[in-house]
């Protein structure tokens, strides 16, 4: 873990001193604002309200508005992590200091997670607005944000790995978007395939179902284990890649 703290600070600095983080946050907030506006309109016209299909459920994964930005914005957050250091050559000065590869990888991943969560922070305002119009169960809000964290962690970890695989930011962006989209579509198999092991697998992998459960306050440990595995595996691969650059 040696080197974690200075690298973490520098990565966060790089996000917020270059306009990247602000552009992404702006795009994301604009998108979620539109999402929220459409939800408010739709719920205002609804005649019947159901307990487990309220606005919180709709906002956190009830429709495709939740997933679409993640497929693009998570890779955009992570694309520069390693690709830029390798393009500019700073990876050489970085890795010749007494830092551990694990420290480097975790510092970069954590900084990207902080940027990702900073992107979600403004959405808390929508919950406050919803609270004015009706009752909010804060525990359900909590599990919803747990879903945001879990899904984000695996996408950010995957993006971190792709940024180490690809030498260019653009290739890293495209690769991670494709893989994230692939995972997302695989999950949709749950609604398409016939009964059988394939459908079971798809249901297990489905972020849609995961968010559906969490936004209703259901915490299934299998989902969390899956999130954890899908986060740790890419980070492990990234760590091996960094070691390979050092000794290749």
């Amino acid at each position, binding site marked *: 873990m040696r080197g974690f703290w200075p690298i973490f600070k520098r990565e966060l600095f790089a996000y917020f001193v270059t306009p990247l983080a602000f552009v992404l946050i702006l795009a994301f907030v604009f998108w979620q604002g539109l999402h929220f506006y459409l939800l408010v309109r739709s719920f205002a016209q609804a005649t019947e309200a159901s307990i487990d299909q309220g606005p919180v459920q709709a906002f956190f994964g009830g429709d495709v508005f939740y997933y679409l930005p993640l497929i693009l914005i998570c890779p955009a957050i992570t694309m520069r992590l390693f690709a830029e250091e390798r393009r500019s050559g700073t990876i050489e000065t970085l890795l*010749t*200091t007494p830092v551990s590869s694990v420290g480097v990888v975790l510092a970069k991943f954590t900084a990207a997670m902080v940027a990702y969560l900073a992107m979600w922070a403004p959405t808390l305002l929508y919950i406050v607005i919803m609270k004015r119009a009706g009752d909010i169960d804060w525990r359900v809000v909590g599990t919803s944000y747990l879903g945001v964290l879990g899904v984000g962690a695996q996408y950010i970890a995957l993006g971190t790995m792709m940024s180490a695989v690809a030498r260019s930011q653009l290739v890293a962006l495209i690769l991670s978007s494709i893989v994230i989209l692939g995972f997302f579509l695989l999950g949709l198999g749950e609604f398409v395939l016939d009964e059988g092991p394939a459908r079971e697998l798809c249901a297990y992998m489905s972020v849609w179902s995961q968010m559906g459960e969490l936004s209703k306050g259901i915490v299934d440990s299998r989902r969390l284990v899956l999130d954890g595995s899908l986060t740790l595996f890419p980070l492990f691969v990234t760590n091996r890649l960094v070691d390979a650059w050092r000794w290749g």
Partner: protein
Amino acid sequence: MTAAISVEKLTKRYGVHAAVDDVSFEVARGEVVGFLGPNGAGKSTTLRILVGFLGATSGRARIEGHDVVDDPDAARSALGYMPEAVPLYPEMRVREYLRFRAELKGVGRAARVSAVGRAMDLARIKDVADTLIEHLSKGYRQRVGLADALVSDPRVLVLDEPTAGMDPNQIREVRDLIKSLGGEHTVLLSTHILPEVEASCARVVVIDKGRLVAEGKPGELARLRTPPRLEVIVRGTWKAAVARVAEVKLLDSRTEGDVEHLTLETPMDEDDRATAAEKLVEALVADGVRIRSVAAGKATLEEVFTALTSEEKVEEVAT
């Protein structure tokens, strides 16, 4: 006493091509050593293995007795490294960057401000401390890289082409700085610019095509390898006289007005050289040529280098 830098039978192969082939050398504590070779000789590859950025196919490298593979953190902690291209983060200010680097290298919080100040003083970049790195000229970037190498006050400095892209004044400053670092610090600097080695290094290691071809003091190498020169300035028809003296060989002549500048090669042996000079002067006087000056020419390392690394001489001079 263990050597500050020790490289033992280092080999790096890419497929069948050996970028570094069985290179061994040592650098004692406090020594300033030049690592010399033409582009593509394997200098950067060797240095990268030494600083632990590249794995060797075989062989060992140690910094202050710490093996760079078995004990990388200890080796890297003792080290200040400046890579050839001097990669920097363009979005940071110079001071921010050096603070970050100092923290990475384990300089404690309390010591960091003074460490950064000292490094900026040494590299003479105080005036750009608050400038964004992306706005710096090549020469300044180079010096920021140097400050980075110095910031943790490491015992061993490995500098890959430290003066590339600097103007003559900056080059002189950096050479003086490197010289002054010797004694307390051990410096290994690579270059393909020979005057650099002559100006700042006590010893030189020459590498070509991945192999070590020579090692010694810059002066020693010069005396060792090129036949001494004689620089003669004359007026008149000199050709016949020079041709009569078998011991000297005409290398070059250039005309400046009615004066001729001649460069002649003389025998390696000192007595023979003296005799040759006598004979030459005699012959010139006999022909009525007016001699304005006869001086012993100093072979530059540039010539040594060409001699050492040209194909046919490599084997014979290898140490």
